[in-house]
């Protein structure tokens, strides 16, 4: 492979990884905005998305298209139960306690997944058959278009939701000022539930679409959550668009460093970026100083 086709190949891989990180980062942002909680079980939504998709298509033989939507629905329900059972009853608790609860939930979810699916990774046939497309000397799997397309669509829909619907506005209001929001007649508890449901749906989309390329196993969550968290922080915690752009940046840097430096270092890269951002510009590359000061972390 010459240099040019190598670069194209790494770029495509980076975009694919990046779109997953972007969706996980967006999931973090939505829950953070509604509650101030960093949901460290965010990666488990992705894991469930992948494994439930595998269960529906391989075990129950449900057609791919239908299985995809059932997966989204089931993982969303998991998100709803999660909020109602573990978060909602703890209203008077400090934020840090709630974040530790999310760690516990993440471990609990992984335990359930290991119990059901075991420790082996599962694969999934791609959403549509077809040979890899050759472009500028690089081979691009058709599934990559699914991943990119679905994440792009999700990001656009989320954007429309938050900017164009009154419910989205109500959720942003909770992010801006929870007390005032509740006194404007917004049911904050319902908005928090909605934020967990939405985040779970986002995770499920990411998980179901990435599994045909990257496989999925019970303990994939934490690493994905870590990368997504890096994206959310890098993008300026609380900024949806920032998290998406930062997700793509991390994906591309990771892919290039795996290709040109060493694949052993690729996971370290995201962490190095996170540490650098926290040292140099804690408000993130897109966050303003003023907003950064308000952050509780």
């Amino acid at each position: 492979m010459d240099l040019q086709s190598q670069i194209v190949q790494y770029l495509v891989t980076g975009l694919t990884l990046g779109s997953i990180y972007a969706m996980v980062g967006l999931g973090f942002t939505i829950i953070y905005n509604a509650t101030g909680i960093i949901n460290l079980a965010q990666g488990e939504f992705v894991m469930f998305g992948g494994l439930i998709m595998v269960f529906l298509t391989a075990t129950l033989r449900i057609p791919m298209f239908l299985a995809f939507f059932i997966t989204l629905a089931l993982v969303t329900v998991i998100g709803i139960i999660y909020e109602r059972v573990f978060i909602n009853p703890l209203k008077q608790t400090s934020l840090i306690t709630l974040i530790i609860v999310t760690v516990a939930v993440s471990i609990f979810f992984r335990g359930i997944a290991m119990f059901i699916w075991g420790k082996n990774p599962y694969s999934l046939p791609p959403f549509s058959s077809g040979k890899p497309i050759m472009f500028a000397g690089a081979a691009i799997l058709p599934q990559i278009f699914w991943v990119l397309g679905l994440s792009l669509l999700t990001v656009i829909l989320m954007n429309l939701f938050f900017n164009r619907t009154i419910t989205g506005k109500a959720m942003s209001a909770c992010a801006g000022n929870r007390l005032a929001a509740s006194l404007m007649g917004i049911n904050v508890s319902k908005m928090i539930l909605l934020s967990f449901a939405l985040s779970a749906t986002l995770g499920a989309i990411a998980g179901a679409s990435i599994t045909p390329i990257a496989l999925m196993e019970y303990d994939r969550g934490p690493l994905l959550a870590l990368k997504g968290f890096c994206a959310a922080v890098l993008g300026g915690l609380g900024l949806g668009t920032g998290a998406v752009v930062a997700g793509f940046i991390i994906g591309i840097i990771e892919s290039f460093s795996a290709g040109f430096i060493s694949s052993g270092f690729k996971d370290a890269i995201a962490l190095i970026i996170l540490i650098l951002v926290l040292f140099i510009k804690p408000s993130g590359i897109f966050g303003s100083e003023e907003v950064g000061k308000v952050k509780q972390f």
Partner: protein
Amino acid sequence: MAIVDLSFEVEPGRIKSIIGPNGAGKTTLFNLITGVHPVSGGQIVFQGKDITHQKPHYGAGIGISRTFQTIELFGNMNVLENIMVGCHSRFKSGLLASGLRLPRMKKEEAEIYENSMKLLGRVGLSSKAQLPASSLPLGEQKTLEILRALATEPQLLLLDEPAAGLNESETDGMSELIYSIRDQGITILLVEHDMRLIMKVSDEIVVVNYGQKIAEGPPDVVQSDSLVIEAYLGGEIDYA
């Protein structure tokens, strides 16, 4: 600060003020009425309905709205959006309808936009509709909070120190706004330290100290009440 023994009524369409020294429990009272703090004893009745143990978001739906002593705007939104969120409780279309952008929803959204702009026009803030709410000077932020509360179309409006931090001419503007809200038929419960404003706009005054009512009546009666004079300053009230 706890409310110990405090009972009063507010007549519809009137301006009732609560005064008392700092820490007397005035803001606590507002927090109890609006469900921000849980009520441990006693009863709050609004239009014949017991609302003692309702959640904070309940009030907006039945016609109670409030402002805050410390400004609580949505800092992540512009001036217009702040008011539009206030219209939230009047909004009928569900999530699905708004997501699909059905005609009913578009019509409702247009109405909300128009109402919000009308409210802004009322105080001459139309030209600042698109500015971030946090960029407004203090007086305008206070006014914006009142507009946002009005957007919920309340029957009872609780104003927590609307004139705090305002200069004299801004305070005059505030009293004009309070009058115009009263003339709309909205009942007002007012907490304020600015005695000049209180004596000017109030129909009736309740004086509290240490969570207890020590006097109630029209401004001129309350002014000459010896208990009140003692609670304040331990001497005479300064009306300047």
